[in-house]
């Protein structure tokens, strides 16, 4: 007796996708858990700064460096700011950086990749060369260099993260577009007179998107780690802005002398967020292409 879920005939498009998604999430409790966590993170990002008990920027030097207690669940930092409020408030910035980076690299890499795969020839060669050149660098080092060159801002962190992930997206998109270039439905579209650009946008891109979505979830995790790492060494985000990486940097000195909560909670938040995105990415991969399960 097999128990493979099959969408009933006649259900197409979004409805079938929804059913399939529900099946996968239900089947695999880990994916369900990751999804729930993801929703929690999004909520924290959207509403966090409004609902936290203390103002993340409000310093109170009399209450500096207090360990976790009933008033301050995560303790206070060296300026007396409530760590819990800062950690939750930081969700917004880190999440924004992750989403922005991923959106940017999806557009840049995805478009360049499908163009390279679809048109071939010089387009393919140029995109390939650009990707190879980027890959010749250790990626974090390149990100450092880009932010240093362009300037110490959050926008530049987003741009640097996107550039550094460009080769991966371009490669995946190119492979998928290349395979579909000669597929039946593309031929049909061509024969009925569609221009190349229309085919690219309406036929190929929608097919490439699901595979890229899996990668996007994984990249979100990477983008947060990247941004945190850059902030940790002083690039990008500047105090007193709450961001997990810079909070760990500020708390690092105190770890050595025993005030662990300062750096621990933002670091743990980082870990949880990245972990969630990775699990989600794995779950999405199972949804999109179960053959690729590890």
């Amino acid at each position, binding site marked *: 007796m097999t128990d493979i879920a099959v969408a009933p005939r006649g259900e197409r498009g979004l409805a079938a996708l929804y059913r399939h998604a529900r099946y996968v999430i239900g089947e695999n409790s880990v994916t369900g858990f990751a999804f729930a966590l993801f929703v929690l993170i999004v909520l924290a990002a959207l509403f966090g700064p409004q609902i936290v008990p203390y103002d993340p920027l409000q310093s109170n030097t009399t209450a500096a460096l207090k360990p976790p207690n009933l008033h301050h669940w995560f303790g206070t930092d060296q300026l007396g700011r409530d760590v819990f409020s800062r950690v939750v408030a930081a969700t917004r910035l880190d999440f924004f950086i992750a989403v922005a980076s991923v959106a940017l690299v999806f557009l840049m890499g995805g478009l360049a990749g499908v163009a390279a795969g679809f048109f071939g020839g010089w387009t393919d060669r140029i995109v390939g060369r650009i990707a190879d050149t980027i890959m*010749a660098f*250790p990626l*974090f080092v390149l990100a450092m260099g880009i932010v240093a060159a362009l300037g110490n801002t959050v926008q530049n962190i987003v741009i640097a993260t996107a550039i550094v992930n460009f080769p991966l997206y371009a490669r995946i998109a190119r492979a998928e577009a290349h395979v579909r270039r000669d597929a039946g439905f593309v031929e049909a579209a061509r024969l009925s007179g569609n221009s190349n650009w229309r085919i690219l946008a309406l036929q190929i891109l929608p097919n490439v998107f699901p595979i890229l979505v899996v990668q996007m979830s994984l990249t979100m995790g990477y983008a947060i780690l990247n941004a945190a*790492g850059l902030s940790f060494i002083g690039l990008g985000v500047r105090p007193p802005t709450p961001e997990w990486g810079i909070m*760990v940097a500020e708390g690092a000195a105190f770890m*050595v002398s025993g005030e662990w909560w300062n750096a621990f909670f933002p*670091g*743990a938040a980082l870990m949880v967020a990245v972990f969630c995105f*990775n699990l989600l990415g794995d779950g999405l991969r199972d949804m999109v292409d179960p053959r690729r399960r590890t």
Partner: protein
Amino acid sequence: MLLLILKRLAMAIPSLIGVVIVTFLLTRALPGDPAAYFAGPAATPQAIEQVRVKLGLDRPLLAQFGRYVVDLAHGNLGTSLTTGQPVAAELQSRLPASAELTLLGLLVSVAIAVPLGILAATRPNSLIDHACRIVATLGVSLPVFFTGLILVYVFYYLLGWAPAPLGRLDVFYSPPPQVTGFYLIDSLIAGDLETFMAALKQLILPALTLGIFSLAPIARMTRASMLAVLSSDFVRTARASGLSAYTVIIAYAFRNAMLPVVTTLGMVFSFLLGANVLVEKVFAWPGIGSYAVEALLASDFAPVQGFVLTMAIMYVALNLTIDILYGLIDPRVRLEA
């Protein structure tokens, strides 16, 4: 075999060219005035002009590039503003510290990850298999600087087992006479066991941090590769021929399974070289990573450029080595070259 090496070398050249071009563009295509960047935040307008002429930043871009390449060929990476020293010399003197740390970290990582992956593959669904999977998933999520800090907190502050994270040697020790720049090796060469132990103690936590960081991809790849190889036809033949468990798993299965793992090492190195920078900051390690970070904070630009270039060239060289290593293990690649 030689042909393979030459071919791979030839393939590395376009990468090198690309690296040089990109690092050039990074510094010349800056928003604002490059000369101001190189002159530093405290420079007067006259100083900026001087720097502009001195560095040839008023010449056309192509001429600048030519000069850049010539400088590179002579090993001239500019001068640091904060120390006044040539960047190349400073990088050279600080490189062994980073190299020793990274190599030791990689060693730790491989020493744990590979056996873990093999055991997980040979005992599917056992405790160790699950442990391997958890390690692989968690390891990718841990920020490396966070791991370092936790290790410091637990092993230095709480347990007192590790020394303070203050660099390569405790204040009371002086470095051994320089042969390789690796304190571990140099102290052994000088027969100085005390210094050896002191250097080792300082190395343990940062190396462990890097090791934990790179554990996940290696363990995951080893496990996946071993699983695939263990169900292959030739392993079945080896089993049917009654060869010993050691021969089947290590001499037959593992050697074949290592091939994708060696390729993964390239990616792992990319991460390691980046993580190096972060770990050096946590442990106050006097390597090239912290050199670049200090320069960044002081808006001292030439060292950062030199750092990025050096790292990239090292990375290209590393990938080349891995390619050649792969050819050594896999005769199919060797003989088709």
